[in-house]
Structure formats: structure tokens, C-alpha cells
């Protein structure tokens, strides 16, 4: 079957960009948050394709958010473009160090150790009164790439930027997954010992994928911080990481578009649930997760695929 991912990416990107000046404020906010989270989940999908589930992507999400926010708050550089770069770079740097260690772990130990690292960050953030402890702090970006922004339009601009960045990254990842290394990742998930016997370095592939996933989560964190205008330690808490895993499972790992569809669905559902049934939101999530695991192990994406598949 022909792969229609690239045209689909281009159409989705154009549609979302068109929404930037037109959509109501609340929709822009919702979509911006969904894109930011979808970015994190994109990294998680890359890891899952390698056979690893990280229960600690909140570490990089939180790092990205705090790095971006601190640059504006403490560094006095309130330029959104620089803030995003700072978030991504900070997360990538930490992932590059921790990855040296984590790339040796598999399965549940990988999940738990990444969880531990995210909880270390959470523990440090909660207790640091200089960073607002549990309350976090607000941030204001005043410009983008040197251009000053008029008040009221900045959220829309950040959203448009995140659309462009997100789809560029999704396209790159799509190319990567189809490349030699991308296919090696899937082989590692199936049987890493055989990959070693064939002469490839499992460690190196896992490491690179891990750092890439960290950088993606950091970028997502920076975008989320810009969209919300606030950061708090909750970004690094394990329930946030659990949410990312949930979104990844919901969408499935079949395609780079899946994380964004399921993140949008997730945020939309959350908005509805907050409005009408705030007390059963987690229960709904749990039941949906069980249903997916039982009946659609490949995620919602398999529903889209099934029709056209041979």
C-alpha cells in the first residue's frame, strides 16, 4: 500500500495553520496544548518502537518547561524562540548524560529507573522555594526571534510556530523511522540479541533514540509552558508521565500522526469532562485504556488503517 503520511502531514499542517488567526481563543489554547503533548508523545512513540516504555518523560517535559520559563524569568531573555531552543537544549543535554546509563536497561527496569529520575526532579522542584515550590511561577514571553509582539496575539503566534515545528519534526521522524536506523529500532524491539549478532550496536541505537525522545519532550515542555503561561512541579510528576504513556497507547505507535490525533482527542475529552463530569474523568481514562489494551492493541490508529489495509 502507498504511504500517504507525507501528504496527510502537509494537509493537517495547512489546516492547523489556517486555524491560527480564525479559531476562537479556547480552541487555539486547546490545540496548542495538544500539539505540545503530542510532541512529547512522539518521542515516547520512538522509544516504544524500540521496545521501551518510559514512565518518566515528565522529567524532560518539566526540564523543558522550567528551562524556558527560567530564561525569561531569571535570565531576562523573554524571546520565545530562544526559550524554545533553551528548553530543547536543556532536555537534550540531560538526556545525553542519563541516556548513557538508561540505554543499558530494558522493560520494567527502564520504566522504573526513568520514573525515579523524573521523581528526583520533582522532589527538587517542590522543595526549592526560589522557584515557587509547588505553586511554580508565571512567565511572559515578550517577543519572538527579535520581533516584539502585540499583546493578545502572542498565544496565536506561539501556536502557529508550534504547528510548523511540530510538523517539521513529525516529518523528520517519519523519514527516520523509514531509514536504516529506524528499522533497526523495530528489530531491537523484536530481538536485540539477534541484532547484536548481525553486527549492529543496540546500545548506540537505544541511546540515540533516548536522547531524541528527551529533546522532543523538552521542546514539548517549552511549548506547553508558553501556551499555559505558567510552570509548576506537576509537569515532572509521575502522573504527567503516565498521561503521556496513556496518549501514546491511545493513538498507537503505527504512525507519526497518531500521537497528535490522540493528544487532541485527549485534551478535547478533558475539556468536556472538566465541564460536565470532573469526578469521573480518571475513571473514563482508565476504562478507555483497558478497552484499548483489550480490543485495539495497536491503538486508535489501527482503526484508520484497517479500512485501506489489504
Amino acid at each position, binding site marked *: 500500500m502507498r504511504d500517504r503520511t507525507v501528504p496527510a502531514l502537509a494537509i493537517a499542517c495547512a489546516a492547523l495553520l489556517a486555524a491560527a488567526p480564525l479559531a476562537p481563543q479556547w480552541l487555539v489554547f486547546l490545540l496548542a496544548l495538544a500539539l505540545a503533548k503530542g510532541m512529547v508523545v512522539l518521542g515516547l512513540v520512538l522509544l516504544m518502537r524500540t521496545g521501551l*516504555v518510559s*514512565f518518566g518523560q515528565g522529567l524532560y517535559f518539566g526540564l523543558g518547561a522550567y528551562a524556558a520559563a527560567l530564561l525569561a524569568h531569571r535570565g531576562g531573555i523573554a524571546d520565545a524562540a530562544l526559550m524554545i531552543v533553551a528548553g530543547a537544549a536543556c532536555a537534550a543535554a540531560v538526556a545525553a548524560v542519563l541516556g548513557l*546509563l538508561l540505554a*543499558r*536497561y530494558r*522493560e*520494567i*527496569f527502564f*520504566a*522504573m*529507573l526513568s*520514573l*525515579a*529520575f523524573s*521523581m*528526583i526532579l*520533582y*522532589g*527538587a522542584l*517542590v*522543595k*526549592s522555594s526560589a522557584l515557587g515550590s509547588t505553586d511554580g511561577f508565571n512567565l511572559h514571553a515578550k517577543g519572538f526571534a527579535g520581533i516584539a509582539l502585540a499583546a493578545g496575539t502572542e498565544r496565536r503566534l506561539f501556536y502557529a510556530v508550534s504547528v510548523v515545528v511540530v510538523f517539521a519534526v513529525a516529518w523528520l521522524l517519519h523519514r527516520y523511522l523509514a531509514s536504516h536506523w529506524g528499522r533497526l529500532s523495530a528489530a531491537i524491539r523484536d*530481538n536485540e*540479541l*539477534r541484532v547484536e549478532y548481525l553486527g549492529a550496536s543496540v546500545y548506540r541505537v537505544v541511546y540515540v533514540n533516548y536522547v531524541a525522545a528527551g529533546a522532543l519532550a523538552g521542546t514539548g515542555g517549552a511549548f506547553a509552558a508558553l501556551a499555559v503561561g505558567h510552570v509548576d512541579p506537576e509537569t515532572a510528576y*509521575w*502522573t504527567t508521565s*503516565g498521561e503521556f*504513556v*496513556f496518549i501514546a*497507547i491511545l493513538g498507537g505507535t503505527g504512525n507519526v500522526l497518531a500521537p497528535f490525533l490522540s493528544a487532541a482527542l485527549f485534551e478535547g475529552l478533558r475539556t468536556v469532562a472538566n465541564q460536565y463530569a470532573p*469526578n*469521573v*474523568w*480518571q*475513571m473514563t*481514562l*482508565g*476504562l478507555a*485504556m*483497558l478497552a484499548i*489494551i*483489550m480490543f485495539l492493541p495497536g491503538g486508535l490508529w489501527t482503526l484508520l488503517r484497517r479500512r485501506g489495509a489489504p
Partner: protein
Amino acid sequence: MSNILAVLFDGVVYSSWLFLMAAGLTLIYGVMKILNIAHGSLYALGGYTAATIAGAWLAAGHAAVGSFAMLVVAALLVGLVMGPLLERGLLKWMYGKNEVVLLLVTYAAFLILEDAIKLIWGVESKLLPEPYSLPGNFQIGTLAYPVYNLLLIAVAVIVGTALAWALYRTRQGKLLLAVIHDREVSAAMGINVNRVYLVTFTVGSMLAGLGGALTAPMIAVSPGIGVEVIVLSFAVVVVGGLGSLGGAALGALMVGIVRSLAVRYWPEAELFTIYLVMAMVLIARPKGLFSAPEARRI
């Protein structure tokens, strides 16, 4: 000197509490290879059930000593109701799936139970201070400690000893060890593996319920108490080596004492140090302190 003693004592009390949680978690993992996130909800359920029935017991004007019995009844209730319900109703259908998928299944169960608790008990805190203050205080140096803390240590020691005895000294325990070692061969030899799973999960749930029930008098039982506990007990279990009872005890002691040292000398780093211990141990021994070597599968 009395300072160090106090810190150590605090650490041991905290370790006892951690051990109650970790023992159930590690038992379930050892036998069923499920890292049960819903353990945190069972802990919360234990707390709520204890607060409700012990509260009712006291409100009815019965002897206050009986409230201790009510704590145990709460734990038994949680184990006997929720254990079979979760194992038969949910987990049974998931056996054979990947460990990480099973982790997600229990995460889903955890999310469902969190809201179920809020629907049943509401979002207000429940208080049950009587059993905590009833036994009075005792002195270490110049500091007064509630006797309830000693009780907690005693319960942890009794539970640990009873579990070890049941596992290594009884016929049923040896059958269980056989299942841990090789599930399929055990089944082929005529061990009823399904029943072993059911019993294990029920006992594990009971321990989580007991942990919650014994904590209820010390805290305000409110929504979300299970969330923090579960990652903490994960840390303990992973430090000790998944599936090892002795490991859970040692892990609980290490984490408990490190935490009380941190609380005393560097309070900002309380949460931080616990997970740092976990990370350090995993770096040195990737599968925890008490873990058997495993053959790689080709």
C-alpha cells in the same frame, strides 16, 4: 547521641510502614510478574475503610480498644473483596501479555479506583485519631514518642516473619516458590496455578489494605493519598530486587533511614534522596540488591 537515636528510630518506624506496602507489591510481582500500580489504590481503600468502620465502632460507643481490631478487619475486607475482584475480573484476562502492558493495565485500574473512592467517600478528609493517641507516649532521651509507632514496627516484623515462614516452611509456600521458579512446569506437575495467583493477589491486596488501615489514624485520609505511596513503594521494591521478600525488607530499611536522615539534616532534599538511593542502587546493581542472575534469551 539521643539525636542519632531519634533519627534511627524515626527511620525504623518509617521503614516498617514502607515494608508493609512493599511486601505485598513484591509478593505479587514475584509470583505473577505484575508490578501493581493499583496497590496504591488498595492502600487508600484500606485507609478509607478503616476510617469508616473504626469510626462507626467508636461512634456506637464500643470499647476504644476494639478500634484496633477494626483496623485489621478493614485490611481483611479490602483484601478479600478487592483481591479476587481485581484478579478474577481484570488481570486474569491479561495473563501472557508483556510486563509493561500489565503495568499499564494496573495503571488503568488505579485510575478507575481513584475516582471510585472519590465517588464513594466524597472529597472531604476522614479523620480517625483515636487509635493513635490511645496507647499514650513513651520517652527516648528527652523526646516523647507515641506508642503507636512501636505497634507499627511490631506489625511489620510479624508480617515479615509470617510471610517468610509461610513461603519457606509450609507446603503451600513451597508450591508457590515452584510457581515463581517455573510457571508452566508447575502447572504440568499438577499445581493449580490459577489458585496460587488468586491467593497471592488476595494476600498482597490485604497487605496494601493493612498498610492503609494502620496509616489512617496517623493522617487525614483524603483523595490522592495512594498516588504518592505507590511510587515510594516502587522505589523500595526496586532497590531490594523485584520479587524478593528479604530485598523488600532491606530496601525499606535503607529508604526509611536515608529519609529520616534527610528530614533531620537536609529537609529540602527529603523526596530527592529517596529516589537518589533508588537510582544509585540500580546503577550499581541493575536489577536491585537481591536479584538472581538471568539467562539471556535468544
